[in-house]
């Protein structure tokens, strides 16, 4: 169980948070203009990396804010945490 440094609350146990999948997948502004394949790309395709992964987390049992985490999935080492809307760091 790792520790996550919530950008709003500070360091808390992982059990207070929930993972929300890959980060920076933007919902298309005009879904109706997309082909099935383009929509499927948004809807279904997710990376599952062994190594550095950019993902979304929410502080469910805390401030309930969503934010982004850069995590090494092989050892849970957290490289960076930044708020929604902020630019991803270069790692």
């Amino acid at each position, binding site marked *: *169980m*790792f520790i996550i440094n919530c950008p709003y609350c500070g360091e808390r146990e992982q059990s207070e948070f929930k993972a*929300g999948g890959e980060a920076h997948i933007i919902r298309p502004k005009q*879904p*109706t203009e997309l082909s099935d394949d383009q929509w499927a790309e948004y809807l279904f395709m997710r990376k599952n990396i062994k190594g550095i992964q950019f993902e979304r987390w929410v502080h*469910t049992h805390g401030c*309930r*804010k*969503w934010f982004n985490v850069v995590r090494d999935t092989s050892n849970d080492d957290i490289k960076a945490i930044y708020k*929604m809307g902020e630019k991803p760091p270069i790692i």
Partner: protein
Amino acid sequence: MVKNLRVKTSKFIDETYKISFKFNGTTYYGYKGDTLASALLANDIHLVGRSFKYHRPRGIMTAGSEEPNAIVQLHNNTSRTEPNVRATEVEIYEGLEASSQNCWPSVNFDIGGINNFLSPVLPAGFYYKTFMWPASFWEKYEYFIRKSAGLGKSPTKPDPDIYEHKYIHCDVLVVGAGISGIMAAKTAAKNGFKTLLVDEKSYLGGSTIYQNSELFKINNQVSSSWLEKEINEIKKFANLEIRTRTSVAAFHGYNFLLARENLTDHLPLDQRNNKTRQRLLKIRAKKVITATGSLERPLIFDNNDRPGILLSSAIEKYANFFGVACGQKNILFTNNDSAYETAISLFQKGIHIEAIIDNREDIDSKLIKETEKNNIKIYKGYTIINTTGYKRINKIIIMQLSKDGQKVVGSKKSITCDCLGVAGGWTPAVHLFTQSGGKLKFRDEDQVFIPNKYPSDQISIGSCNGDFTLNEILSSIPEILKDFLNIKKTDYDNLEVQSSFNKSKRNIWLLPSDKIIGKTKPFVDYQNDATAKDIKLALREGFRSIEHVKRYTTTGMGTDQGKLGNMHALGIISETAGSKMGELGTTTFRPPYTPLTFGTIVGRNVGEYFDIFRRTPIHDWHIKNNAEFENVGQWKRAWYYPKNGENMHEAVQRESKAARDSAGILDASTLGKIDIQGTDASEFLNRVYTNAWSKLSIGKCRYGLMLNEDGMVYDDGVTTRLDENHYIMTTTTGGAATVLGKLEDYLQTEWPELDVYLTSVTDHYATISVCGPNSKKIVSTVIPDLDFSDESFPHMSFKNAKIDKIKCRVMRISFTGEHSYEINVQANYGKSVWEKCIEVGKEFNITPYGTETMHLLRAEKGFIIVGQDTDATMTPIDLQMDWIVSKKKYDFIGKRSLYRSDTIKEDRKQLVGLLTENPDEVLEEGAQIVADVKKTPVEMLGHVTSSYYSPNLKKSIALGVIRGGKNMLGQKLIIPMENKQINVTVADPVFLDKENKRLNA
């Protein structure tokens, strides 16, 4: 008369405190300080159990938690019984009762022992292979295997003990209180770190504390005396917490460790009541120092598992610590110097040593010279090739080793004995380190894996780091600690150490024999009866991966996780396969290090505390009125209210009829309620529901359907516009939390520009639903100041009102199809308003109904229940709810998915009504629906999702999903059951009042 093998007094044993205990029904005596193992050995008992597969007699092998053989059942047939307890870890107490397990009918005569002679037909993979044989074979084996195998019996009575969990945060955690751990803890504490020191034993000091030899000295004091002073000093630090009888079970990432603290297991049973038995410590440490020591390795030769064969270090501990001789005619067999430490200890205690077999040829050290001075015969360059003695070793047979150690030469010689100590060198206890994600490296000189890469702020010190001799330990630790704790000096910077240990070792994983391997039984895993032969067989059958060999041979898969023999298994694999040890890697050690009780794991979360119960404000009334309850998520919901001995069916029929004939009342407080405010609230609802919301006027209610982005129905409920920028949304009971989470997710991450605020108010309101033709009369009496005319208060509208001084929100909405009102009041007024409705409704036979009747009433109307009539594969179109999907809206969650090539298929499963040919026949929910039973394989068209007997329609009704069902109206289908076929007709899912006349009745 049993023999007493107690030798010289030990200061760790209180001989003035005699304790009686029972083993396999016989009463024995031991002393305070004894373990069950030491007390049995003092009574000359070695045979303790039987092995798992061959049921070979097995004895005590070790003096610690790594014990593979001596596992016993405590207090059989009582509520405190516990299986798989290591006799080496049980501290005896008055009244202790232990029995052998894994033997039937008794440890001395065990039917399964026949497996030993059948062993040619029970090779590696035997159990796997039996599963692959025809099923009928298994029936025959099952009884035999189940009865004669099995690792102890689980308790059948409730556990009377109390357990708890405790969180601990510290700067430095030191695991293991041997000499290394004591030094580390003192250094950390002295430098101001908040330190926690834990050890699985009841005492501090590890194996050094009973090392009394003049040959090992620190600052000119015998090592145990020096360490004792250190221990006395560390007890004085206020910032150092010491917990003994505490075994670290797991070492997770980010320095999170779980430990089990034993608080009462060493006390007599009558002193345990109302005390916490075990505590699960959840430790978060900034820094971890692992000082878990090392485990002695056995040696692998033919029949190396007989009772009376122990680790040499265990024999030393029994003599030095417990004052017990393991035998009267002892032999030691070694490949390194540590057996000589044992020899000297035994000699000092006056315990006879018959001989030492050393597989090294040219050896010379102070220890050996000292041993030879005592006239102990040493066979240099020899190996044991076999042993005899069924229930206790009585003889060893030795031969000379060839120069390369690959075979034996010369003639056989046998030596009688009653105890054999084996010393195969040391294996660092790296289990916790690897659990934490640490990577090992292989050290060729002495063939050990040692810590290499640390994944967190932690360090391994002492013999778990591969420093085995006193010299190495004491010289390495100060430097490691200075670096790790970032300090300038330690108390140990200039220690003078005197150690007589020579590091030479002749490591032979599988010792040669004069027989071919197929004729021998050299055990590698004692608990699971895996031999070197089995491992070689697995390799011959093509297994290469260490993890596969482990599973196939079951090596290392016992409750001891093969702590003794894993290294030999790896060694034998690498030798046989011709690969290098370092490249093979190791098997994975998984938590827990030693078994945990279920009690420790659940702590206080037992019985009604297992999970949270949520109760509505009206809960007490339901109890008083005889309600049966149903769990819906964490909620306890009134299910039905049986009267005068009614069964569930009778109660539900009565309730359903009353609700349609006159009036019914339902506690709907569990429905999720989300308060939505903000200037963009309407736009937000437009985006999350399938239908349009902008034009909903203030004071009106609307039913909404929420989809996932994949177009599948996610939740539903009625949302009311309270004000221009203010809505109250209701969700399903089970979906409340996830719907809120999903809405917050979209608001924060996709549409942060929207001015919308969400608040969960589920628990803040009690919701009372009154329905039926007389509902208006009742509610208007309860709320006399409100205009209840259809013009002023039509269906799907809302009013603010007051009941006396209590503010309430009244919605005219209906889930039953009846004229119906929902009264929402502040939760703490819920019960009084409910009681008022009941009181007023008496003259109309107002009938409280539960969730079952609610489900029946809505099914009559064909209203879906999300999660019952839908799973995550149903679109609104599949539900024949096209009417609720806005064609005009540009976008909403899931819209685009509704016309993906897959979601527009005509033959998707679609919701339909089902009527049985026999109107009294009620279908089973979940039953499969087919068109043609003769076709093979039978084609499943769908299944029944809801089914009831409707007292209002006087017939059976059901909802189901059927492939292409939308176009099958009137078609006859079949529901095949175990012993019959039920004929059904596809019908409109709305069974009652299709014109919705009753809403305004």
